[in-house]
């Protein structure tokens, strides 16, 4: 099979525009969580989220990426995806010109929920004003694969055009699937990742009803996301998009592209257990990690850093147990952290931004911290990187993503040594 490397990354995160800016905030141990201000939260159990800043340092302005008249026609998750894809393609320096280059470049961008705001608003229009007032842009502006569609139209990418929907493992599955498309020869370059704009009253109410969200820290949002901590009580919702440009190794070398790392492993599994709860001992996660490791042809002792799914829910310790089982005696040599402690849970975009953090951990030889980890709920030999980043050797990084429905994805990246 052909080898696949990452040559470009792009991100719109709860810290703002760009991976470098976001990475700096994460390494500084900052939290992006704050009280939700874009709608009234008085009657919601969870009143906090990690929203994209529209002013201040790193501020995101959608006009920089999408013409205002076009923004009106598309859901916000699509705008985030377009913006992150622009940044990733620019970072990769890949601008397909010839017909062959365009046909060899594809897109796989997913979303967990898609245009929930557009759907709920249009439902109200339908009720109040009737079907003749439903916009012709309602459907094409809210369906999930339209991020891939828009990105392909804007950049002339005529290769495989696909979209993944696997809840909170969407971003990881999109990147893993796209890497396989390159490995199998369907494309030479793929633009892959996830985009999500879930901070709406409806989704906060829905996830709170599932008892998935943090509700104890409405007055102190910056300490609400606390993976593995004894006082964790649910995840903090985030929004944004992460996009990675993946490329066949020789193709990347031939054009002198910078290479963040190689996608060496991808493992998938299903729990076949429960709609929202992970299987006992996170057995499905264990199998996904084992499959990814087998694909990568590495030993557990080769794994230096794990970017955990670690959502700040009860499931954190189950994931920890599964990783301990995977690593065995090598556990004491590995670092594992959850960047969700800083930026919250971006749902369908989580696995994509966490892929980028894993690649940056390899680039900078530093494990990002798990902030707010004051009192670990379980004893472990694994370094959970509390509070401060850890400078260390990172040649191999593993990233986990799990989703409702019992879907699990694991990606493994390796520093390219030549």
């Amino acid at each position: 099979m052909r080898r696949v490397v990452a040559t470009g990354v792009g991100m719109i995160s709860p810290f703002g525009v760009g991976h470098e800016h976001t990475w700096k905030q994460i390494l500084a141990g900052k939290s992006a969580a704050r009280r939700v201000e874009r709608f009234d939260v008085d009657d919601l159990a969870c009143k906090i989220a990690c929203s994209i800043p529209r002013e201040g340092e790193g501020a995101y302005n959608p006009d920089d990426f999408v013409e205002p008249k076009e923004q009106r026609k598309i859901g916000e998750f699509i705008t985030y995806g377009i913006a992150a894809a622009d940044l990733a393609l620019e970072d990769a320096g890949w601008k397909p010109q010839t017909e062959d280059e365009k046909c060899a470049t594809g897109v796989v961008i997913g979303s967990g929920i898609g245009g929930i705001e557009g759907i709920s608003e249009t439902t109200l229009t339908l009720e109040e004003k009737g079907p003749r007032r439903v916009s012709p842009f309602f459907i094409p502006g809210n369906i999930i694969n339209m991020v891939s569609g828009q990105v392909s139209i804007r950049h002339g990418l005529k290769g495989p055009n696909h979209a993944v929907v696997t809840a909170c493992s969407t971003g990881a599955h999109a990147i893993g699937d796209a890497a396989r498309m390159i490995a199998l020869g369907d494309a030479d370059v793929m633009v892959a990742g996830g985009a999500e704009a879930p901070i709406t009253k409806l989704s906060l109410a829905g996830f709170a009803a599932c008892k998935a969200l943090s509700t104890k820290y409405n007055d102190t949002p910056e300490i609400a996301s606390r993976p593995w901590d004894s006082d964790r009580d649910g995840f903090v919702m985030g929004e944004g998009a992460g996009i990675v440009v993946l490329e066949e190794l020789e193709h990347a070398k031939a054009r002198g592209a910078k290479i963040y790392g190689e996608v060496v492993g991808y493992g998938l599994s299903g729990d076949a257990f429960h709609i929202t709860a992970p299987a006992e001992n996170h057995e499905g996660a264990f199998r996904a990690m084992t499959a990814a490791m087998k694909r990568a042809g590495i030993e557990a002792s080769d794994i230096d850093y794990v970017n955990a799914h670690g959502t700040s829910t009860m499931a954190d310790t189950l994931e920890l147990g599964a990783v301990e089982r995977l690593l065995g005696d090598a556990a004491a040599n590995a670092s594992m952290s959850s960047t969700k402690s800083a930026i919250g849970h971006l749902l369908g975009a989580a696995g994509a931004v966490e892929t980028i953090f894993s690649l940056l951990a390899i680039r900078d030889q530093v494990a990002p911290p798990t902030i707010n980890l004051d009192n670990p709920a379980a004893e472990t030999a694994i370094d959970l990187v509390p509070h401060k980043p850890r400078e260390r050797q990172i040649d191999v990084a593993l990233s986990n993503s799990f989703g409702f429905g019992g879907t699990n994805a694991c990606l493994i990246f390796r520093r390219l040594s030549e």
Partner: protein
Amino acid sequence: MSDTAERVKKIVVEHLGVEEEKVTMEASFIDDLGADSLDTVELVMAFEEEFGVEIPDDAAETILTVGDAVRYIEKQTA
């Protein structure tokens, strides 16, 4: 320009993001103002909303220019 024409023009400028000078009575939504078929559907909806008229699909199909829209609406609201 009539009041109706002014209001139509404003809607067209807002929805299609075009410069005001381009929105002449003779301007074709698709050929001159860059609209696609979905844009024209949305424009007709906006006219209905603004003027409180109903524009049936077969009538909408005959509204190709800014002037067509103004004349249709003026006839309905006269």
